[in-house]
Structure formats: C-alpha cells, structure tokens
C-alpha cells in the first residue's frame, strides 16, 4: 500500500476554548487517506463536515490530536511553515468556486503557483494553460470568472486546486451548486485527475450518486466518524 497522504489521530476541534461557550465540534477523529484514494465524506448538516475539512486542510489547527500531511507532523510547524505546507500539499475546491473576480481564468489557475514562487514565468503559464485545456476551458483563458457559467467557474476552480500538483485535494460540495450535467462533468474531471495523476481527493458531498462513485465513503455524525463503506456499498438510506 502506498504511503498515506493524510493521517489524523484523535483530532479534536473546539471553538471558544476556555470560555463558557466552549463547544467541541470534532470528538476525536482518526483518519488515514492513502495516496490515490478518492474518498467522500457525508453526513447530516451540522455534523461538522466543514470544520473537518478546515482542520484536515490545515486552515485551522486542531485543539488536540495529531495530523500528518505527506508525513510531516504539523505540530512541528510554525505559522509560516504551516502556510507553506498548505500551499504546496493541499488544493482546495469550494462550493462557491471562490475564484478571484479581478483575475482571468488563467491567472486564477496561476495564482497558487504565483503565491508559492513569487513571480510568474513561462513554465508556470504553460502548466496553467495545460490544466485549463484539460478541464475543457482552453478557449477561455482570458475570461474573467464573471463571464463564465457556474459549471465553467467550478472547472476553473478544479484546475486551480491542481495547479501546484498537490498530493491532496479537499473539496467542499464541489458540485452542490451545479445542475446535474455540470455536476457530472466536474466529478468526471476529478476522477480523471485522480486516476491519471494519483491525486488523493477528500470530497464532502450530500449527493449519494457522487458518493457511490468514490472508492470509499465516510460518514460524519455529531463530530464522529460513524460509518465507512466502499463506494458501491453506500446504504440506501442515503438516497
């Protein structure tokens, strides 16, 4: 078995630590994502799925427990080390694409590389162009996000998440906002990148059809991982 891209042991996350309103959202999560896995995370709303993604995506530090990304323990990293690890190892796809409206599609895809390297160069442009080609938007390089359809915007966001060729991509309801056809197209893209480049995906989704197409499905209820199935064994209660 390939090395794990993400490992979490006993991860807890509380808000308002030390105050009277302290609330624990995640109650001890253990998780391992192997390289090239495509995993879906489902659960009722309010279960803590977004917090789960934020913590696993290193956007927030856990209150307790350990997380390793690509073998690196984040407890050993300071603020800037964490930021760098996040930028290089993890790509994000958000429900509302969250593209930067001031930048063209190509520039949006370039952005993570720019952030990492500081200055643009020809090779970076080439890579970004290639990615946009792969998501079928080769003809819209210079378009601003506002001039693209919802499905196209989300495909730009997919290309952006993959710009740094990160081993791990976290997606929060990537198709939640799209019609069925666009949702299908976006998911197929994710699958392609997963197969062709061995990128590991962790996808939060309410959509059982989408979940069934993943390798593994995790269920999060009340801040605990309560169930786990292979993609094609997802119980019918999810429909």
């Amino acid at each position, binding site marked *: 078995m390939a090395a794990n891209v993400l490992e979490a042991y006993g991860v807890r996350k509380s808000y308002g630590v030390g105050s009277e309103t302290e609330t624990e959202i995640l109650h001890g999560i253990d998780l391992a994502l192997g390289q090239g896995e495509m995993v879906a995370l489902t659960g009722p709303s309010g279960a803590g799925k*977004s917090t789960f993604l*934020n913590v696993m*995506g290193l*956007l*927030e530090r856990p209150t307790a427990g350990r997380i390793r990304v690509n073998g690196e323990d984040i407890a050993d990293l300071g*603020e*800037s080390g964490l*930021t*760098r690890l*996040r*930028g*290089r190892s993890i790509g*994000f796809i*958000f*429900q*509302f694409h*969250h593209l*930067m*409206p*001031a*930048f063209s599609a190509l520039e949006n895809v370039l*952005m*993570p590389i*720019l*952030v*990492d*390297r*500081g*200055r*643009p160069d020809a090779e970076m442009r080439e890579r970004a162009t290639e990615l946009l080609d792969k998501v079928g938007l080769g003809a819209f390089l210079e378009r601003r996000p506002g001039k693209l359809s919802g499905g196209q915007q989300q495909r730009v966001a997919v290309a*952006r998440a993959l710009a740094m060729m990160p081993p791990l991509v976290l997606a929060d309801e990537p198709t939640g906002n799209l019609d069925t056809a666009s949702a299908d197209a976006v998911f197929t893209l994710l699958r392609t990148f997963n197969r062709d480049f061995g990128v590991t995906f962790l996808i939060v989704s309410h959509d059982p059809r989408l979940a069934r197409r993943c390798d593994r499905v995790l269920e999060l209820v009340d801040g605990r991982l309560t169930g786990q199935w292979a993609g094609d064994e997802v119980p019918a209660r999810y429909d």
Partner: protein
Amino acid sequence: MPFTVIAALRFLREGRFQTVLILSGVAVGAAVIVFLVALITGLQDDLISRTLGTQPHIVLRPADDAARSLFRPAPGETLDAQVEKRAQRLRSIDGWQRVLADAAATPGVIAVSPMASGPAFAARGSAQKSVALLGIEPERYTRIVPVNMKMAAGSFRVSGEDAVIGVDLAKDLGASIGDKVRLSTAGGRTQVVTVAGIFDLGLRDLNRRWVLITLRSAQTLLDLAGGVTNIDLSVRDLFGAEAVARTIAARTGLAAESWMKTNAELLAGLRGQNGSSAMIQFFVSVAVAFGISSVLVVSVVQKSREIGILRAMGASRRAVMTIFLLQGAVVALAGSVLGCALGTWAALAFQSWQGVFHVWLGWQLYAAAIAGATAIGTLAAIAPALRASHLEPVAAIRYGG
C-alpha cells in the same frame, strides 16, 4: 513582477470607484501643497530679491566711536559723570585693503566691494539737492548691487569724471545724459561730474539720493584720503549671512551688519509665513492619510474573501500585508503625480492672473511632494494591511461566501 505587486494593482483596478475616490483625494491634497509651496516660495524669493536687489548682504563699518572716561575712580571712590554720547564722524576702516582681502577669503563670501560714502549736495543751475555720494569700484560694486542691470538711460560708466545718478534726481536737477552736475560737500570740496547714466532701482528714495562716482573722487570729496567708510559683501547662502557677519565682526573688530538684521521684520514675516504654510501642509497630509486609510479599511472588508482564498492557497500574512501596503503606496504615488500636475497648472494660472512674481516650480518641490505622499500613503495603509494580514482564511471564506 512579483505576485504581491500584481495582486495590489489588480485589487486597485477592481475597486474602481474607491480607487478613483482615493486617487482624487491624494491628488487634491498634493495639488494644494504644490500650489501653496510654489506660491509662497515664489513670493518670498521675489520679496527677498527685491529687498536684496539694492542692498548688500553684509556691510562692514568701523565700530561706533564711544565716549571714554578720562578718570578712573580709585577703589572706594565714586565718580559722578554726565556722559554725552559722541557724534559719529565719517571715519574710514583702518587697513581696509587687508580687511577686504580677509573678508573675501571668508568661506561663504562670494563678492566684496569697498565704498567711500557720505553726504553731499548736487547742483545744476539753480537746482540743488542733498544726495548720498557712493564712491565705488564699479567692477566690484555691480557684483553686490547690479545697478548696471537697472539702467534707465545712458550706460553704467563710473570712471574719471563720469557719474551715474538715479532717475528721480535727474528729474529734480533737470539733467540728462552728458549734462554736468556739480557735487559739493560740507567740507567745502567740489567736483563737477558728467552724467553718464541714469538708473532706476525701483525705490524712489534711492533714485532721488544716490550718486555713484569713482572711489577716488569720493575719497577726495569726503576728505577720506585713501580710506573707505564701508565694505559691502555678498554671500552664497542668503540665510547664512548673519553667521558670516558675526564671524567677520569677531575677527576684525568692525561692526558687521547682515541684511537679516537690517530687515528683521521682513524676516519675521517670512518665518511666520513658512510656519503657517507648514501647518497647512501638515493638516492636509493628515487628512489625506485618513482618507487613504479609511478607503483601504473598507476595501479590506470587501476583499476579505479573496484574502482568505489567497491565504488558503499558501499566501503568508506578510504577503497579504505587502499587498495592502503597496496599494497605499501606489495610490499615493499616482495621486501625487496627478496632484503635481494639477498644482502646477493652478500655480501657473495664478501667476499669469496676478503677473507680479514668478511662482517657484523647482524639481525639488515635485520630488518632495511625490516622495512625501508615497511615504504617507504607505504609512496610512499600515492599519488596513495589519487588519488584512490577521484575517483567518476560514473566517474570511465562510463570511465572504
């Protein structure tokens, strides 16, 4: 171009209305300052050059005669004395050639000119006027007071029997170029001179009283036999004149009077003007800084989602901070360039409207305005930039969604 610069410029372009607002604020502020400084400096230069157009920067004279006590009271004795102040006779400077050379060698001094001057009468026909004789070496004197540049008629020729007089005196005496004028002094000496030129210094008093003759003629007429009554100096740094005067006075024992002393009121006026101008500049800068700061704070709030995305993609706090500092700097730089153009236009319009003096538009003015504005813009952006850099990516993305 580094990514922070690209992002800063793009954010500015995206927030078009805000950018225009903040740019105009900076431009107006810079224009006010450029206009004000151009005007005040021009006015002051004009005042100073008018004032100094007819007087030397420093005049050296013999120290005043003082009454000396003939008795020295023994210890325990008291002396009752009525001291009468001495009348100041016309005296020459002891060893003036040496003093002249010494003064010329003083750092900061750029011209020296000896002069024998005293009162006299000028007569032509039945007209008789009281005048001031200025015995000069023309070459040297014109480097102190450029009378040769202010000729109304004839030429500036002071040699032998040739003299140059003011327009009002010429009118009073009914004299024109080539006419003879008889000069006589209280000592009973007389000399007839030919009017070679008539000057107009723009000051009636001088135009009515000054008679420029050769140093030698004046020495003879005033009974000074080879002596001079004063030495005039020009200095390089106008406002350093008083310091130079003090140095020379201390070294030579002569009385040295700078233009700053003889025009103390003018100087106080200029200082007051500079002070109020500095106050206005200060408050305009503060207002502009607050403007930049508040517009950028709003922009941080509006851009919080984008900031969050950048942070999620691995942008450091420092990079986010730089992006906003750059926005402040860029807006201030561009606004101040605009403001310089606007201020220059206003200053030139004002100049052609009032037409009395030239506004000052040196490159230093623009350099200072642009550098100052850029610094202020960057400083004003510190608070918004700090705020942006402390946005948590998660919160920014969540609330900005």
